[in-house]
């Protein structure tokens, strides 16, 4: 059930170019997403990682057109050949839920507490496919079975508060997948869940990918990226600092921030790591970004050039790119 674009398969499913999203706030303009570009083909899974304020979630919300009125977006987001930026809301609504769907971090707030599971799910297909209520109920049941909800029929008539966190997130994924979208955007879909439930939800996302959906997964957890994603994009202060194939980036991280992140995560499978490897300092305040490279104040390799000019993303090899004046190809500092 591949959902690739009908006209030309070499055209990426999603092409984001020079996307910037800024928020006007009383304190000034916050450059939440700053000139980022990436593309995604059908069936591909891209992980976007970063810490708070890195712009990873705002990138997703920009694609979905779910930004508050204080946001200004520029650049281009082409999805299935169609430009999403500036698309009238009515047209965007036709795409959302049917062609592209979003899974939120917190399943409780993503579900309407007043609606039964059936109503949450059937709304999507009634709206997009004009199904009758009984036909929509049948679709809802299929969707619940697809996400392995036990006793699916009984769950249809329950309300969100009667479900556990893991079940709720399954319902949210079922909702997202019910119309067979070609692109699934997921914002920290497992962060609120226990590890054993997280493992099940990640399996579920992998199944949606097998079924042909492309996935953009936003997470702070590099383990989740390692498990699920073909490619990874590392963001810092609204910019992409490194990208590439997941296996390449993890084996040979070139940006000092990526290296620091990988060193900072405690792991189950290696020696107890040396806490001195942790990155110093705090993620920056987007209202007071330093000139030059935003990571320079925390970077062990920063030189005078880093404090003057911001590095641009320079491609290397196949699919790889890094934005650092001192990126050291092939060497992982210890």
């Amino acid at each position: 059930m591949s959902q690739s674009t009908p006209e030309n398969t070499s055209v990426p499913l999603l092409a984001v170019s020079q996307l910037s999203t800024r928020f006007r706030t009383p304190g000034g303009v916050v450059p939440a997403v700053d000139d980022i570009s990436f593309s995604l083909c059908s069936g591909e899974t891209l992980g976007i990682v970063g810490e708070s304020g890195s712009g990873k979630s705002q990138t997703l919300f920009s694609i979905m057109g779910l930004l508050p009125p204080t946001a200004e977006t520029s650049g281009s987001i082409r999805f299935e050949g169609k430009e999403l930026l500036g698309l009238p809301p009515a047209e965007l609504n036709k795409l959302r839920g049917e062609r592209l769907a979003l899974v939120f971090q917190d399943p409780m707030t993503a579900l309407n507490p007043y609606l039964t599971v059936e109503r949450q799910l059937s709304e999507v297909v009634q709206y997009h496919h004009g199904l009758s209520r009984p036909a929509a109920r049948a679709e809802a049941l299929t969707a619940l079975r697809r996400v392995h909800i036990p006793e699916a029929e009984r769950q249809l008539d329950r309300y969100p508060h009667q479900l556990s966190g893991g079940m709720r997130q399954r319902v949210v994924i079922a909702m997202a997948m019910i119309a067979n979208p070609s692109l699934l955007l997921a914002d920290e879909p497992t962060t609120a869940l226990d590890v054993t439930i997280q493992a099940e939800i990640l399996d579920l996302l992998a199944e949606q990918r097998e079924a042909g959906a492309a996935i953009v997964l936003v997470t702070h957890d590099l383990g989740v990226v390692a498990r699920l994603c073909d490619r990874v994009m590392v963001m810092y202060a609204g910019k992409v600092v490194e990208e590439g194939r997941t296996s390449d980036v993890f084996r040979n991280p070139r940006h000092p921030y990526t290296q620091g992140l990988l060193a900072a995560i405690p792991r189950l499978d290696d020696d107890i790591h040396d806490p001195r490897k942790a990155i110093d300092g705090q993620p920056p305040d987007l209202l007071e970004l330093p000139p030059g490279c935003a990571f320079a104040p925390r970077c062990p390799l920063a030189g005078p050039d880093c404090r003057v000019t911001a590095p641009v993303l320079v491609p290397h090899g196949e699919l790889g790119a890094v934005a650092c004046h001192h990126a050291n190809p092939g060497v992982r500092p210890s």
Partner: protein
Amino acid sequence: MTPPSPLLRVENLSVRFPIPGEMWGAKAVVHAVEDVSFDLAPGETLGIVGESGCGKSTLGRTVLNLIPATLGRVFWQGRHLAAATAREQRLMRREMTMIFQDPLASLNPRMTVGSLVGEPLDIFEPSLARDERRRRIAAVLERVGLPPDAVARYPHQFSGGQCQRIGIARALILKPKMIVCDEAVSALDVSVQAQIVALLGELSREMGVSLLFISHNLAVVRQISDRIMVLYLGRVMEIADRQSLYHAPRHPYTQALLSAVPVPDPEIERQRQRIHLVGELPSPLNPPSGCVFHTRCPFASERCQREMPALAAIDALHTVACHHWQEIAEGRHRATT
């Protein structure tokens, strides 16, 4: 003179919360913590892990006497906590403190960092000279890595990681013997989390403070703990030293938990075997018969449904509550780490 007695001893502790029953039903009881026993030595860090609803936070609060125990006893340096007089309890309070999950929410926004950190001194050492008070606040702020000018600033002017440092300074200023850290780094970014875990580890070593480190994050717990206790539905499944728990876990639940944590390495991730748990977490209102884990355990037998397994010692530091741990260990079922 006396043999090294544990700082904290918890004996057969149960904590149950009655909740209003349904219209005609009997009153229901949440079994938050059931029959938990452990010792905490001076300077030791005990990690307490488990998923939501396993009772780990309730356990931490009961140990601090913030929640009364339903059954069982908690001894602080040999003294029965619940039997202590108000005056004794007040003295104990000096020696045991807590660091909370949400650093900003746990600090009064209208107090400066100096008064927040100095507040425990005002309560316990009201006669302290002002200079000395100021000196102690400055010293503890420096120790946790905050700038000297933090004293006059307010919590909202700091990032999450720095707020957690303020919380640590507040916990440290009375030189406690034990700190209960309840998900103390869970809300922080990865890079900052590593800094705070490193700081807590240093402080524990330098000052000989014992930590009860409560977290759902098994990898973080591994960084800092000497021993780890795994809870499920309020009961202890396994207690072991770090090496044994992570390299030779014996309880199927521990094995499943460890196998569920993704490792940040795509090559390893692709080859890992996972232990799938079936079904959902049962309600603590109505815990399963026999072994509470049997409804989800891949190895459960008929005996597990009937009979609650006792904690059995594998060696001096390692105990496990499972009827079948030996057979599982001898079979080919191992968690892959």
